[in-house]
């Protein structure tokens, strides 16, 4: 069940240049799942549509969002203070399937602003499973959430400039460390997701990737946010599926990216 309600900023701080960590008190925190997202509504009259932001962590009575300032809406959010009101709608989407990791070697990959959405997953998976490795990938030494991951699971790091951990991307880190995942969970930029899809297909493993697309409604009504699918979709009856409703997480083989 999705809810549309007024939330309240519990805490907001900057984690790295242009990256903000905002905790929002709202009742939808009671049943949000890892990999789901929420719509956050800017107030400025120069904006219209809500902004889709992933759930980074679920706390008692609040959701944690970590976002990058990308334009008008996220700029506005970054200026909020504790106590400010913010409208939220969610939780939206399917989330990551935790069961797929049962008794297997699970590897969680996050790239850039795709790092935050795998934090709650890392927390919940590490409570249930013994073999969980997380690899966040960053551009440089401005590594946000690294300590948070280290609390929950074995954490390796990739940085593009080589300032920490593996030099390169998360796939380079997998190779360098000789990791052989049974199942991958990922969120990140399109080139990274494409590389993961290819790797998973070549190695015959499952990979659950979280996709992004421009969205208007967030509830499956506008058909703005689709991705091409291998098979005809059960709802649309064409080779297109709604990321906001049937996703944002898909098994990599199901989607054409």
């Amino acid at each position, binding site marked *: 069940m999705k809810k549309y309600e007024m939330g309240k900023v519990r805490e907001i701080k900057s984690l790295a240049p242009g990256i903000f960590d905002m905790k929002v008190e709202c009742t939808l925190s009671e049943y949000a799942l890892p990999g789901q997202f929420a719509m956050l509504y800017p107030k400025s*009259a120069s*904006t*219209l549509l809500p902004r889709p932001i992933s759930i980074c962590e679920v706390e008692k009575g609040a959701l944690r969002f970590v976002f990058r300032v990308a334009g008008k809406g996220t700029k506005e959010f970054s200026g909020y203070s504790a106590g400010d009101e913010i409208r939220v709608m969610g939780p939206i989407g399917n989330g990551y399937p935790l069961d797929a990791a049962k008794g297997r070697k699970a590897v969680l990959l996050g790239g850039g602003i795709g790092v935050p959405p795998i934090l709650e997953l890392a927390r919940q998976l590490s409570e249930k499973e013994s073999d969980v490795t997380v690899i966040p990938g960053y551009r440089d030494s401005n590594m946000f959430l690294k300590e948070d991951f280290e609390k929950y699971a074995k954490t390796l790091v990739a940085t593009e400039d080589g300032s920490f951990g593996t030099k390169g991307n998360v796939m380079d880190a997998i190779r360098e460390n000789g990791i052989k995942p049974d199942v991958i969970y990922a969120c990140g930029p399109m080139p990274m997701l494409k590389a993961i899809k290819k790797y998973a297909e070549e190695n015959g493993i499952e990979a659950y990737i979280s996709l992004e697309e421009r969205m208007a*409604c967030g509830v*499956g*009504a506008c058909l703005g946010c689709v991705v091409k699918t291998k098979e005809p979709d059960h709802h*649309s009856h064409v080779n297109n599926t709604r990321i906001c409703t049937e996703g944002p997480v898909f098994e990599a083989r199901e989607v054409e990216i």
Partner: protein
Amino acid sequence: MNTKVTIAGVEFKNPVTTASGTFGSGMEYSEFVDLSKLGAVTTKGVASTPWPGNPTPRVCEVYGGMLNAIGLQNPGIDVFCERDIPFLKNYDTKIIVNVCGKTVEEYVAVVEKLADQPVDMLEINVSCPNVKEGAIAFGQDAKALENITKEIKKAAKQPVVMKLSPNVTRIADMAKAAEAAGADAISLINTITGMKIDIERRKFVLANKTGGMSGPAIKPVAVRMVYEAAHAVNIPIIGMGGIATYEDAIEFILAGATMVAVGAYNFVNPNATVEVVDGIEDYMKRHGIEDINSIRGAVE
């Protein structure tokens, strides 16, 4: 106090419906909105066969509104009849089915399939700016509009609403053409063709290059067009374009609309439709209006 309105013998409990394509089949918003509170649910355009729509990006925000180039993705009339109509029949609301096609024959095929379905009215989309063939071509030429309206009227068992495009020189001429060909009502406006360019990448934001603009910024254009159409024809009008609140809805009614539809604003406020219904009632109380029909076209 009476909020009931009638179009071609179909009675609606209040004058508020949803704009096609912004409310799915109603199912998508039923978590937020009690559909039984609405005068009608107008569904997403449906064609004779499934359509995959346009490549993405399909939507983007613009100042005061948005552009969309969905390209009329839909599952086809057969799935619609099996899945979406039975769902809507669970609610105490009227059903207006929006129909699209690439040729007259395709429109007629859908209308024929709907003939024995429990739906109340048909809205014919001859004004979608986002598909290459058909659709808007029928809505931008008075002769073509007359022709398709006649063919659809021959096949239709339910009252027919022709949905007009604002992308024309004289809306009154199009309204008259629809009326002359036997349309039971008209609805307007569909989206206004627009474009957005990403100056950093020097690329079109939408994959389709152009998209239809909707949202609060188009309301003044829509109100003006409804007013002009209302003065040109005697058939009822469903007014839409940028409605966000009851104040907007009342403007359309004062301009001459019998019903109003909430579109893109559903994305901003999923409760917008019911808030408009409640707001209209409060407005009537506040102004001592006994019958909503008494203020239609009452602008001086």
